[in-house]
């Protein structure tokens, strides 16, 4: 029988999902319940890729793109042909609290979302700069690159929204007015990356130059149909239960460390949402004039 207020029946609440911290599924559910008002608006209408850890994050989790057997009828799904696996994928779309709770009850830790919505799957409404440091570079270098990027975007009249990736990286997202294709957005991000690389010696803008120790790659490749980024406020399947945390630029300037944002600290923290205006702040992207 479901709990009051939801169609979802919580099961195995005492199951430990983060062994090292003793975090149970009840706590994970509580986290997603508390964060739902912030997560749900951005997840809306986006076909999700999920990473589930039914045996806890110490054990291998698995990616789930297809709505599993037994998906309740009230869960919205979106069927799309995937060229990479050459078959239809029936994605889950999380349009409400019940779906979010149902996913969390299935030990979904990570939620990855595309940069477009189901109704216009091929037209991005988000532009992503995925800033990925290569050791020994780490979060400090990623944050430095993000701050350089902020100024660069400012020169173009664009406002980016930063978040931690929940691992070592930083994501900067620019909400855009739909129109440009993924390819155009991808080229835009790549060109901005090239500009950054010219200014800062440790920044790399080409895929072929990654893996060079101590560099930071401004990854443009995720700006493609069907590609995803980890959703803001999504937990990560790390031993320390880190969160992909939306931040103010001010937070980045003060400096952050990877352990700052975890399930427990975010749950304790204030409820302010640096990304609250993101979906209302759609910006027009002038594409096609950024050459070398």
């Amino acid at each position: 029988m479901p709990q009051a207020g939801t169609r979802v029946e919580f099961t195995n609440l005492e199951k430990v999902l983060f062994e090292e911290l003793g975090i149970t599924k009840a706590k994970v559910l509580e986290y997603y319940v508390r964060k739902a008002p912030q997560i749900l608006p951005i997840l809306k209408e986006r076909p999700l890729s999920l990473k589930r850890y039914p045996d806890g994050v110490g054990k291998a989790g698995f990616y789930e793109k297809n709505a599993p057997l037994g998906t309740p009828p009230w869960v919205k799904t979106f069927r799309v042909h995937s060229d990479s696996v050459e078959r239809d994928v029936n994605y889950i779309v999380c349009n409400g609290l019940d779906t979010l709770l149902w996913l969390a009850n299935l030990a979904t830790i990570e939620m990855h979302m595309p940069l477009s919505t189901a109704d216009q799957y091929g037209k991005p409404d988000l532009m992503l700069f995925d800033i990925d440091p290569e050791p020994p570079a780490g979060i400090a270098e990623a944050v430095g690159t993000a701050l350089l990027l902020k100024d660069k975007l400012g020169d173009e009249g664009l406002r980016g929204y930063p978040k931690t990736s929940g691992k070592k990286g930083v994501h900067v997202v620019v909400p855009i007015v739909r129109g440009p294709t993924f390819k155009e957005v991808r080229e835009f991000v790549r060109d901005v990356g090239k500009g950054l690389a010219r200014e800062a010696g440790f920044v790399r803008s080409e895929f072929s130059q990654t893996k060079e120790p101590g560099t930071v790659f401004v990854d443009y490749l995720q700006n493609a149909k069907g590609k995803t980024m980890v959703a803001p406020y999504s937990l990560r399947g790390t031993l320390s239960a880190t969160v992909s945390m939306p931040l103010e630029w001010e937070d980045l300037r003060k400096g952050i460390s990877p352990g700052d944002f975890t399930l427990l600290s975010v749950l304790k923290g204030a409820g302010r949402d640096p990304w609250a205006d993101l979906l209302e702040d759609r910006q027009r992207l002038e594409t096609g004039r950024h050459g070398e």
Partner: protein
Amino acid sequence: MANDGDVEPYSAQKASKRPIWTGTITIGLVNIPVRVLPMIFDKEVTFRFLHKEDGQPLRYQRICTKDEKVVPWEDIVKGYEVSKGEFVVLGKEELAAARPESDRRIRIDKFVDYLSIEPIYFERSYLLTPDKSGDAYRLLYLALEKMGKAAAGRVTLRTKEYPVLIHVYKGALVMTTLRYADEVRDPSAFKELEGLREPSKGELDIAVRIVKDLTGDFDIREYRDGYRERVGALIAKKMKGERIREEKPVREEAKELMAALQETLEQLRKK
């Protein structure tokens, strides 16, 4: 059936109008072709087992108790358990050979007083309808009714031979299969029933008076399956969208979760 106009969410199918068997009633040299239709249906509420987690129905698998593997139908044979854990295997063909062949006849041996037959032997009743034999059918019906008799005989239905009675019921001939004598336990085997004290005449008089006072006409419609009606009403309610929630005691680890849920619901409602 009277159910206060509620839907009848019972799995029992309506009595089929299709015959399960056709044959003839044979009395000596007289044959009356009839169709045999089911007339008893068990109105139990049946449930499916579902997986609690996702609400999906379960299916059964036949698993070998030794290697725990699923056994396909073609690898299954029938075994008779001779003694605990010891079986004699009977092949499909062997069983088929032992099966009685139905000659599609209800052979009548004799006519008996219907009321003299102990109801304990009654098993299952089937409706007989005439098969282009209306006159003979009606004649047999009236003769049985007038004399208060039933025709006793035997029939092979599917793979089993049954003793049967043909008797009258509301304008129709009904065939009721009977249990064999060795299928009914004899109460004399029970020691608890031996040597019971005989009551005094006075005691017996009082008991008889009580019985007389409570004597009335039997009407089966006075009896209703309360459980079935309550479950039926419950299901009907659920079908109308009224959800009946089981309020489970909230365990300690879930208390904060429940508090969070209520606060978030409140917050989402305000938006």
